[in-house]
Protein backbone atom coordinates (compact mmCIF):
# COMPACT_ATOMS: atom_id res chain seq x y z
CA UNK A 1 0.00 0.00 0.00
CA UNK A 2 1.41 3.37 -1.00
CA UNK A 3 1.62 6.40 1.25
CA UNK A 4 -1.82 7.10 2.73
CA UNK A 5 -3.45 10.34 1.60
CA UNK A 6 -5.89 10.25 4.51
CA UNK A 7 -4.99 9.19 7.98
CA UNK A 8 -7.05 9.19 11.16
CA UNK A 9 -5.06 8.53 14.33
CA UNK A 10 -6.97 7.90 17.55
CA UNK A 11 -9.62 10.37 16.47
CA UNK A 12 -12.35 11.19 18.94
CA UNK A 13 -15.53 13.07 18.12
CA UNK A 14 -18.24 13.53 20.68
CA UNK A 15 -21.49 15.39 21.04
CA UNK A 16 -21.81 15.96 24.77
CA UNK A 17 -21.43 12.56 26.36
CA UNK A 18 -22.08 10.68 23.15
CA UNK A 19 -18.97 9.50 21.35
CA UNK A 20 -19.58 9.39 17.61
CA UNK A 21 -15.99 8.41 16.83
CA UNK A 22 -14.17 6.39 19.40
CA UNK A 23 -10.37 6.41 18.99
CA UNK A 24 -10.73 5.81 15.28
CA UNK A 25 -7.70 4.68 13.30
CA UNK A 26 -8.32 4.75 9.59
CA UNK A 27 -6.22 5.13 6.45
CA UNK A 28 -6.96 5.62 2.80
CA UNK A 29 -4.28 5.18 0.14
CA UNK A 30 -3.84 7.52 -2.79
CA UNK A 31 -6.27 6.56 -5.54
CA UNK A 32 -8.05 4.07 -3.37
CA UNK A 33 -11.85 3.75 -3.52
CA UNK A 34 -13.19 3.09 -0.05
CA UNK A 35 -16.81 2.55 0.92
CA UNK A 36 -18.04 3.01 4.44
CA UNK A 37 -21.14 1.12 5.47
CA UNK A 38 -22.83 0.72 8.81
CA UNK A 39 -25.93 1.48 10.85
CA UNK A 40 -27.01 5.08 11.33
CA UNK A 41 -25.24 6.77 14.20
CA UNK A 42 -22.16 4.63 13.66
CA UNK A 43 -20.11 7.71 12.73
CA UNK A 44 -19.68 7.03 9.03
CA UNK A 45 -20.89 10.42 7.78
CA UNK A 46 -18.95 12.11 10.55
CA UNK A 47 -15.71 10.81 9.03
CA UNK A 48 -16.50 12.67 5.80
CA UNK A 49 -17.71 15.80 7.58
CA UNK A 50 -14.51 15.96 9.63
CA UNK A 51 -12.45 15.66 6.45
CA UNK A 52 -14.43 18.47 4.81
CA UNK A 53 -13.81 20.59 7.94
CA UNK A 54 -17.52 20.80 8.66
CA UNK A 55 -17.04 19.19 12.08
CA UNK A 56 -14.19 19.69 14.52
CA UNK A 57 -12.55 16.80 16.27
CA UNK A 58 -12.20 16.42 20.02
CA UNK A 59 -9.06 14.31 20.06
CA UNK A 60 -6.46 12.62 17.92
CA UNK A 61 -5.00 13.78 14.63
CA UNK A 62 -6.42 13.72 11.11
CA UNK A 63 -3.92 14.06 8.27
CA UNK A 64 -4.50 14.74 4.61
CA UNK A 65 -1.54 14.32 2.29
CA UNK A 66 0.77 13.89 5.27
CA UNK A 67 -0.18 17.21 6.81
CA UNK A 68 -2.44 17.55 9.85
CA UNK A 69 -5.87 18.84 8.86
CA UNK A 70 -7.22 20.22 12.10
CA UNK A 71 -3.83 21.25 13.48
CA UNK A 72 -0.86 23.24 12.37
CA UNK A 73 2.71 23.26 13.54
CA UNK A 74 3.22 25.70 16.41
CA UNK A 75 6.48 26.49 18.22
CA UNK A 76 5.75 23.76 20.80
CA UNK A 77 4.06 21.12 18.70
CA UNK A 78 0.63 20.96 17.10
CA UNK A 79 -1.86 23.73 17.76
CA UNK A 80 -5.48 24.02 16.53
CA UNK A 81 -5.60 25.07 12.88
CA UNK A 82 -6.56 28.59 11.89
CA UNK A 83 -8.82 29.45 8.97
CA UNK A 84 -5.89 30.05 6.59
CA UNK A 85 -4.59 26.54 7.19
CA UNK A 86 -8.04 25.03 6.80
CA UNK A 87 -8.52 26.87 3.51
CA UNK A 88 -5.24 25.50 2.20
CA UNK A 89 -6.13 21.97 3.24
CA UNK A 90 -9.67 22.13 1.85
CA UNK A 91 -8.31 22.60 -1.65
CA UNK A 92 -7.55 18.90 -1.75
CA UNK A 93 -11.07 17.82 -0.89
CA UNK A 94 -14.41 17.86 -2.62
CA UNK A 95 -17.75 16.79 -1.22
CA UNK A 96 -21.05 15.55 -2.60
CA UNK A 97 -23.96 15.96 -0.19
CA UNK A 98 -26.97 13.79 0.47
CA UNK A 99 -29.32 16.71 -0.17
CA UNK A 100 -27.21 18.01 -3.10
CA UNK A 101 -26.89 21.50 -1.50
CA UNK A 102 -26.82 23.24 -4.86
CA UNK A 103 -27.13 27.03 -4.81
CA UNK A 104 -30.80 27.57 -5.73
CA UNK A 105 -30.31 31.16 -6.92
CA UNK A 106 -27.68 30.22 -9.50
CA UNK A 107 -28.00 28.45 -12.82
CA UNK A 108 -26.31 25.09 -13.25
CA UNK A 109 -23.49 26.84 -15.08
CA UNK A 110 -22.92 29.36 -12.30
CA UNK A 111 -23.11 26.64 -9.68
CA UNK A 112 -20.10 25.17 -11.44
CA UNK A 113 -18.16 28.33 -12.28
CA UNK A 114 -18.62 30.52 -9.20
CA UNK A 115 -16.12 28.78 -6.92
CA UNK A 116 -13.46 28.13 -9.60
CA UNK A 117 -13.63 31.82 -10.49
CA UNK A 118 -13.76 33.44 -7.05
CA UNK A 119 -11.78 30.86 -5.09
CA UNK A 120 -9.28 29.51 -7.63
CA UNK A 121 -9.13 32.71 -9.68
CA UNK A 122 -9.97 31.10 -13.02
CA UNK A 123 -11.02 33.37 -15.87
CA UNK A 124 -14.66 33.29 -16.89
CA UNK A 125 -13.70 31.57 -20.13
CA UNK A 126 -11.63 28.86 -18.42
CA UNK A 127 -14.25 28.27 -15.75
CA UNK A 128 -16.92 27.89 -18.38
CA UNK A 129 -14.85 25.43 -20.40
CA UNK A 130 -14.19 23.41 -17.29
CA UNK A 131 -17.89 23.45 -16.41
CA UNK A 132 -18.96 22.34 -19.87
CA UNK A 133 -16.45 19.51 -19.85
CA UNK A 134 -17.73 18.29 -16.48
CA UNK A 135 -21.38 18.58 -17.45
CA UNK A 136 -20.53 16.46 -20.46
CA UNK A 137 -19.02 13.92 -18.10
CA UNK A 138 -22.16 13.74 -15.95
CA UNK A 139 -24.42 13.79 -19.00
CA UNK A 140 -26.00 17.22 -18.48
CA UNK A 141 -24.32 19.27 -21.17
CA UNK A 142 -27.67 20.62 -22.36
CA UNK A 143 -28.88 21.81 -18.94
CA UNK A 144 -26.41 24.55 -18.11
CA UNK A 145 -28.88 27.42 -18.14
CA UNK A 146 -31.42 25.67 -15.91
CA UNK A 147 -31.91 26.41 -12.25
CA UNK A 148 -31.53 23.53 -9.77
CA UNK A 149 -35.24 23.31 -9.00
CA UNK A 150 -35.97 22.74 -12.68
CA UNK A 151 -34.00 19.49 -12.54
CA UNK A 152 -34.84 16.08 -11.16
CA UNK A 153 -33.11 14.90 -8.01
CA UNK A 154 -30.81 12.65 -10.00
CA UNK A 155 -29.83 15.50 -12.29
CA UNK A 156 -29.27 17.79 -9.32
CA UNK A 157 -26.97 15.27 -7.70
CA UNK A 158 -25.01 14.92 -10.94
CA UNK A 159 -24.60 18.70 -10.95
CA UNK A 160 -23.45 18.38 -7.34
CA UNK A 161 -20.78 15.90 -8.41
CA UNK A 162 -19.67 18.13 -11.28
CA UNK A 163 -19.55 21.17 -8.98
CA UNK A 164 -17.23 19.39 -6.56
CA UNK A 165 -15.03 18.13 -9.41
CA UNK A 166 -14.72 21.66 -10.83
CA UNK A 167 -12.40 22.46 -7.93
CA UNK A 168 -10.08 19.62 -9.03
CA UNK A 169 -9.86 17.93 -5.62
CA UNK A 170 -7.56 15.01 -4.96
CA UNK A 171 -10.08 13.33 -2.69
CA UNK A 172 -13.81 13.10 -3.34
CA UNK A 173 -16.16 12.53 -0.45
CA UNK A 174 -19.63 11.17 -1.20
CA UNK A 175 -22.02 11.43 1.72
CA UNK A 176 -24.93 9.10 0.97
CA UNK A 177 -25.25 10.58 -2.52
CA UNK A 178 -28.33 8.57 -3.47
CA UNK A 179 -30.23 8.41 -0.18
CA UNK A 180 -32.47 11.38 -1.01
CA UNK A 181 -33.34 10.13 -4.48
CA UNK A 182 -36.38 8.32 -5.81
CA UNK A 183 -35.41 4.71 -6.52
CA UNK A 184 -35.60 5.08 -10.29
CA UNK A 185 -33.08 7.96 -10.21
CA UNK A 186 -30.44 6.18 -8.14
CA UNK A 187 -28.93 4.41 -11.12
CA UNK A 188 -27.97 7.49 -13.12
CA UNK A 189 -26.04 8.93 -10.17
CA UNK A 190 -24.31 5.65 -9.37
CA UNK A 191 -23.31 5.29 -13.01
CA UNK A 192 -21.57 8.65 -12.89
CA UNK A 193 -19.73 7.75 -9.71
CA UNK A 194 -18.74 4.37 -11.15
CA UNK A 195 -17.42 6.07 -14.26
CA UNK A 196 -15.35 8.43 -12.11
CA UNK A 197 -13.98 5.52 -10.14
CA UNK A 198 -12.95 3.71 -13.29
CA UNK A 199 -11.53 6.50 -15.35
CA UNK A 200 -9.85 8.75 -12.80
CA UNK A 201 -7.17 8.26 -10.24
CA UNK A 202 -9.18 10.21 -7.70
CA UNK A 203 -9.20 8.98 -4.16
CA UNK A 204 -12.82 8.29 -3.29
CA UNK A 205 -14.48 7.90 0.05
CA UNK A 206 -18.10 6.90 -0.15
CA UNK A 207 -20.77 6.48 2.49
CA UNK A 208 -23.70 4.54 1.09
CA UNK A 209 -26.45 2.06 1.70
CA UNK A 210 -26.23 0.72 -1.85
CA UNK A 211 -24.50 -2.56 -1.10
CA UNK A 212 -24.38 -3.91 -4.62
CA UNK A 213 -22.82 -0.69 -5.82
CA UNK A 214 -20.30 -0.68 -2.98
CA UNK A 215 -19.31 -4.15 -4.07
CA UNK A 216 -18.77 -3.08 -7.65
CA UNK A 217 -16.74 0.10 -7.24
CA UNK A 218 -14.75 -0.22 -4.05
CA UNK A 219 -11.27 -1.49 -3.44
CA UNK A 220 -12.13 -1.80 0.21
CA UNK A 221 -15.26 -1.77 2.33
CA UNK A 222 -15.28 -0.67 5.97
CA UNK A 223 -18.08 -1.64 8.29
CA UNK A 224 -18.52 1.00 10.98
CA UNK A 225 -20.19 0.28 14.27
CA UNK A 226 -20.28 2.40 17.42
CA UNK A 227 -17.74 4.92 16.26
CA UNK A 228 -15.09 2.60 15.00
CA UNK A 229 -14.28 0.15 12.22
CA UNK A 230 -15.70 -3.16 13.24
CA UNK A 231 -14.50 -5.00 10.18
CA UNK A 232 -12.95 -4.17 6.83
CA UNK A 233 -11.70 -5.93 3.74
CA UNK A 234 -12.17 -6.30 0.02
CA UNK A 235 -15.82 -6.30 -1.06
CA UNK A 236 -15.67 -10.04 -1.60
CA UNK A 237 -14.27 -10.74 1.84
CA UNK A 238 -16.70 -8.49 3.60
CA UNK A 239 -19.88 -9.30 1.72
CA UNK A 240 -19.45 -13.02 1.13
CA UNK A 241 -17.55 -13.99 4.18
CA UNK A 242 -17.92 -11.51 7.04
CA UNK A 243 -16.09 -12.59 10.17
CA UNK A 244 -17.89 -10.52 12.78
CA UNK A 245 -21.31 -11.47 14.03
CA UNK A 246 -22.28 -7.75 14.03
CA UNK A 247 -21.36 -7.41 10.35
CA UNK A 248 -23.34 -10.47 9.40
CA UNK A 249 -26.40 -9.18 11.26
CA UNK A 250 -26.13 -5.78 9.57
CA UNK A 251 -25.69 -7.20 6.07
CA UNK A 252 -28.54 -9.60 6.60
CA UNK A 253 -30.83 -6.79 7.71
CA UNK A 254 -29.83 -4.53 4.82
CA UNK A 255 -29.84 -7.09 2.04
CA UNK A 256 -33.12 -8.64 3.03
CA UNK A 257 -34.79 -5.38 4.01
Amino acid at each position, binding site marked *: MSEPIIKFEKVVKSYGNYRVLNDLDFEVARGEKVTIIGPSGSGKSTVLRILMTLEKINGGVVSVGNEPLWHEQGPNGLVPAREAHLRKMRKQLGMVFQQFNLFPHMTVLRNLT*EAPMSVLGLSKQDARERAEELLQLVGLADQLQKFP*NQLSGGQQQRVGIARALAMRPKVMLFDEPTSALDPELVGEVLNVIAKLAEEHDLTMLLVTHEMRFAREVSDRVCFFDQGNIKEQGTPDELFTNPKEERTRAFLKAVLEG
Partner: protein
Amino acid sequence: MPWFDYLKPLADGAWITVQLTVFSTILGALLSFIFGIGKLSDNWAIRAVSIAYIEIFRGTSLLVQLFWLYFALPIAGDAIGLDLRLPPVVAGVAALGLNIGAYGAEVVRGAIQAVTPSQYEAATALNFTRRQTLWKISLPQAIPEMMPSFGNLAVQNLKDTALASLISLGDLAFRAEQLRNYTQDSTTIYTIVLLMYFGMALVLTAMMRVLEASVGRWRGARS
Protein backbone atom coordinates in the same frame (compact mmCIF):
# COMPACT_ATOMS: atom_id res chain seq x y z
CA MET B 1 -63.54 77.60 3.04
CA PRO B 2 -64.74 74.82 0.71
CA TRP B 3 -62.98 71.45 1.15
CA PHE B 4 -61.00 71.65 -2.11
CA ASP B 5 -59.25 74.78 -0.90
CA TYR B 6 -57.57 72.58 1.71
CA LEU B 7 -55.98 70.46 -0.99
CA LYS B 8 -53.22 72.85 -2.06
CA PRO B 9 -51.63 73.34 1.40
CA LEU B 10 -52.18 69.70 2.25
CA ALA B 11 -50.57 68.59 -1.00
CA ASP B 12 -47.55 70.77 -0.17
CA GLY B 13 -47.34 69.01 3.16
CA ALA B 14 -47.79 65.61 1.54
CA TRP B 15 -44.81 66.32 -0.72
CA ILE B 16 -42.63 66.92 2.36
CA THR B 17 -43.97 63.68 3.83
CA VAL B 18 -43.02 61.83 0.65
CA GLN B 19 -39.49 63.20 0.73
CA LEU B 20 -39.11 62.41 4.42
CA THR B 21 -40.31 58.87 3.79
CA VAL B 22 -38.09 58.25 0.80
CA PHE B 23 -34.89 59.60 2.32
CA SER B 24 -35.37 58.06 5.74
CA THR B 25 -36.32 54.69 4.23
CA ILE B 26 -33.17 54.71 2.10
CA LEU B 27 -31.08 55.67 5.12
CA GLY B 28 -32.87 53.01 7.16
CA ALA B 29 -32.22 50.34 4.52
CA LEU B 30 -28.50 51.19 4.50
CA LEU B 31 -28.31 51.04 8.29
CA SER B 32 -30.27 47.77 8.28
CA PHE B 33 -27.66 46.04 6.15
CA ILE B 34 -24.66 47.59 7.90
CA PHE B 35 -25.77 46.69 11.41
CA GLY B 36 -27.69 43.52 10.54
CA ILE B 37 -24.54 42.10 8.96
CA GLY B 38 -22.45 43.71 11.71
CA LYS B 39 -24.37 41.80 14.36
CA LEU B 40 -23.20 38.55 12.72
CA SER B 41 -19.56 39.64 12.51
CA ASP B 42 -16.71 37.58 13.96
CA ASN B 43 -15.24 40.78 15.32
CA TRP B 44 -16.61 41.42 18.80
CA ALA B 45 -16.23 45.20 18.55
CA ILE B 46 -18.31 45.39 15.38
CA ARG B 47 -20.84 43.07 16.96
CA ALA B 48 -20.99 45.16 20.12
CA VAL B 49 -21.53 48.42 18.21
CA SER B 50 -24.26 46.79 16.12
CA ILE B 51 -26.07 45.39 19.13
CA ALA B 52 -25.81 48.72 20.96
CA TYR B 53 -27.23 50.61 17.99
CA ILE B 54 -30.10 48.18 17.50
CA GLU B 55 -31.07 48.03 21.17
CA ILE B 56 -30.83 51.78 21.76
CA PHE B 57 -32.94 52.76 18.79
CA ARG B 58 -35.47 49.99 19.22
CA GLY B 59 -35.65 50.49 22.94
CA THR B 60 -36.38 54.22 23.03
CA SER B 61 -39.25 56.27 21.71
CA LEU B 62 -38.98 57.71 18.22
CA LEU B 63 -40.43 60.98 19.47
CA VAL B 64 -37.70 61.29 22.10
CA GLN B 65 -35.01 60.42 19.52
CA LEU B 66 -36.40 63.14 17.27
CA PHE B 67 -36.48 65.72 20.06
CA TRP B 68 -33.04 64.68 21.19
CA LEU B 69 -31.50 65.19 17.74
CA TYR B 70 -33.31 68.47 17.18
CA PHE B 71 -33.31 70.11 20.61
CA ALA B 72 -30.74 68.34 22.80
CA LEU B 73 -27.92 67.70 20.32
CA PRO B 74 -27.25 71.41 19.60
CA ILE B 75 -26.97 72.10 23.33
CA ALA B 76 -24.72 69.09 23.85
CA GLY B 77 -22.66 70.27 20.89
CA ASP B 78 -22.46 73.74 22.37
CA ALA B 79 -20.98 72.32 25.55
CA ILE B 80 -18.08 70.80 23.61
CA GLY B 81 -17.76 73.74 21.27
CA LEU B 82 -19.35 72.26 18.15
CA ASP B 83 -22.21 73.58 16.09
CA LEU B 84 -24.53 70.58 15.92
CA ARG B 85 -27.70 72.41 15.02
CA LEU B 86 -29.53 70.35 12.42
CA PRO B 87 -32.11 71.70 9.99
CA PRO B 88 -35.51 70.10 10.77
CA VAL B 89 -35.40 68.00 7.59
CA VAL B 90 -32.03 66.53 8.48
CA ALA B 91 -33.07 65.85 12.06
CA GLY B 92 -36.30 64.28 10.82
CA VAL B 93 -34.66 62.05 8.21
CA ALA B 94 -31.91 61.06 10.65
CA ALA B 95 -34.27 60.15 13.50
CA LEU B 96 -36.67 58.24 11.25
CA GLY B 97 -33.86 56.46 9.40
CA LEU B 98 -31.98 55.53 12.55
CA ASN B 99 -35.17 54.23 14.13
CA ILE B 100 -36.36 52.16 11.17
CA GLY B 101 -32.80 50.97 10.53
CA ALA B 102 -32.68 49.37 13.97
CA TYR B 103 -35.80 47.31 13.20
CA GLY B 104 -34.53 46.58 9.69
CA ALA B 105 -31.19 45.35 11.03
CA GLU B 106 -33.01 42.61 12.92
CA VAL B 107 -34.85 41.66 9.72
CA VAL B 108 -31.54 41.44 7.84
CA ARG B 109 -29.91 39.39 10.59
CA GLY B 110 -32.88 37.05 10.83
CA ALA B 111 -33.06 36.48 7.08
CA ILE B 112 -29.33 35.75 6.81
CA GLN B 113 -29.52 33.31 9.70
CA ALA B 114 -32.54 31.64 8.10
CA VAL B 115 -30.48 30.54 5.08
CA THR B 116 -30.19 26.80 5.62
CA PRO B 117 -26.96 25.53 7.23
CA SER B 118 -26.50 23.16 4.30
CA GLN B 119 -25.86 26.17 2.04
CA TYR B 120 -23.03 27.26 4.33
CA GLU B 121 -21.67 23.71 4.32
CA ALA B 122 -21.63 23.71 0.52
CA ALA B 123 -19.86 27.08 0.60
CA THR B 124 -17.26 25.72 3.01
CA ALA B 125 -16.74 22.62 0.89
CA LEU B 126 -16.08 24.85 -2.12
CA ASN B 127 -13.64 26.87 -0.04
CA PHE B 128 -15.39 30.24 -0.30
CA THR B 129 -14.18 32.84 2.19
CA ARG B 130 -16.62 34.16 4.79
CA ARG B 131 -17.03 37.35 2.81
CA GLN B 132 -17.64 35.55 -0.49
CA THR B 133 -20.16 33.32 1.24
CA LEU B 134 -22.03 36.37 2.51
CA TRP B 135 -22.14 38.19 -0.82
CA LYS B 136 -22.52 35.29 -3.20
CA ILE B 137 -24.44 32.69 -1.24
CA SER B 138 -26.34 34.01 1.76
CA LEU B 139 -27.38 37.56 0.85
CA PRO B 140 -28.85 36.68 -2.57
CA GLN B 141 -30.97 34.06 -0.85
CA ALA B 142 -31.79 36.17 2.19
CA ILE B 143 -32.81 39.42 0.47
CA PRO B 144 -36.01 38.04 -1.10
CA GLU B 145 -37.01 36.77 2.35
CA MET B 146 -36.48 40.24 3.84
CA MET B 147 -38.79 42.01 1.42
CA PRO B 148 -42.20 41.44 3.07
CA SER B 149 -40.86 42.73 6.39
CA PHE B 150 -39.16 45.65 4.66
CA GLY B 151 -42.52 46.50 3.07
CA ASN B 152 -44.12 46.64 6.50
CA LEU B 153 -41.33 48.79 7.87
CA ALA B 154 -41.53 51.23 4.96
CA VAL B 155 -45.27 51.76 5.53
CA GLN B 156 -44.69 52.11 9.26
CA ASN B 157 -42.00 54.66 8.48
CA LEU B 158 -44.39 56.65 6.29
CA LYS B 159 -46.84 56.90 9.16
CA ASP B 160 -44.11 57.76 11.64
CA THR B 161 -43.16 60.83 9.59
CA ALA B 162 -46.19 62.54 11.15
CA LEU B 163 -44.13 62.90 14.32
CA ALA B 164 -41.74 65.18 12.47
CA SER B 165 -44.45 67.84 12.46
CA LEU B 166 -43.54 68.30 16.13
CA ILE B 167 -40.15 69.76 15.19
CA SER B 168 -41.93 72.32 12.98
CA LEU B 169 -41.35 70.42 9.76
CA GLY B 170 -44.06 71.36 7.28
CA ASP B 171 -45.22 67.85 6.48
CA LEU B 172 -48.77 66.64 5.94
CA ALA B 173 -49.60 66.37 9.64
CA PHE B 174 -48.15 69.82 10.29
CA ARG B 175 -50.19 71.43 7.50
CA ALA B 176 -53.32 69.70 8.73
CA GLU B 177 -52.77 71.05 12.20
CA GLN B 178 -52.23 74.56 10.83
CA LEU B 179 -55.39 74.44 8.74
CA ARG B 180 -57.40 73.08 11.62
CA ASN B 181 -56.25 75.87 13.92
CA TYR B 182 -57.30 78.33 11.30
CA THR B 183 -60.64 76.87 10.19
CA GLN B 184 -61.70 74.61 13.11
CA ASP B 185 -62.93 72.18 10.39
CA SER B 186 -61.44 69.10 11.99
CA THR B 187 -63.69 66.50 10.37
CA THR B 188 -63.08 67.50 6.77
CA ILE B 189 -59.39 68.14 7.20
CA TYR B 190 -58.59 64.96 9.07
CA THR B 191 -60.69 62.92 6.67
CA ILE B 192 -58.70 64.28 3.74
CA VAL B 193 -55.43 63.71 5.62
CA LEU B 194 -56.45 60.16 6.47
CA LEU B 195 -57.15 59.44 2.82
CA MET B 196 -53.88 61.04 1.75
CA TYR B 197 -51.82 58.92 4.13
CA PHE B 198 -53.75 55.87 3.03
CA GLY B 199 -53.18 56.70 -0.64
CA MET B 200 -49.45 57.17 -0.07
CA ALA B 201 -49.30 53.89 1.84
CA LEU B 202 -50.99 52.10 -1.05
CA VAL B 203 -48.49 53.51 -3.53
CA LEU B 204 -45.60 52.59 -1.23
CA THR B 205 -46.92 49.05 -0.80
CA ALA B 206 -47.24 48.70 -4.56
CA MET B 207 -43.66 49.91 -5.00
CA MET B 208 -42.39 47.42 -2.44
CA ARG B 209 -44.26 44.67 -4.27
CA VAL B 210 -42.47 45.57 -7.49
CA LEU B 211 -39.14 45.55 -5.66
CA GLU B 212 -40.02 42.22 -4.05
CA ALA B 213 -40.85 40.70 -7.42
CA SER B 214 -37.64 41.99 -8.96
CA VAL B 215 -35.41 40.47 -6.28
CA GLY B 216 -37.57 37.35 -6.19
CA ARG B 217 -35.82 36.03 -9.26
CA TRP B 218 -32.70 35.58 -7.07
CA ARG B 219 -34.52 32.67 -5.51
CA GLY B 220 -34.10 30.90 -8.82
CA ALA B 221 -36.73 30.12 -11.38
CA ARG B 222 -39.84 28.35 -10.18
CA SER B 223 -40.48 25.14 -11.96
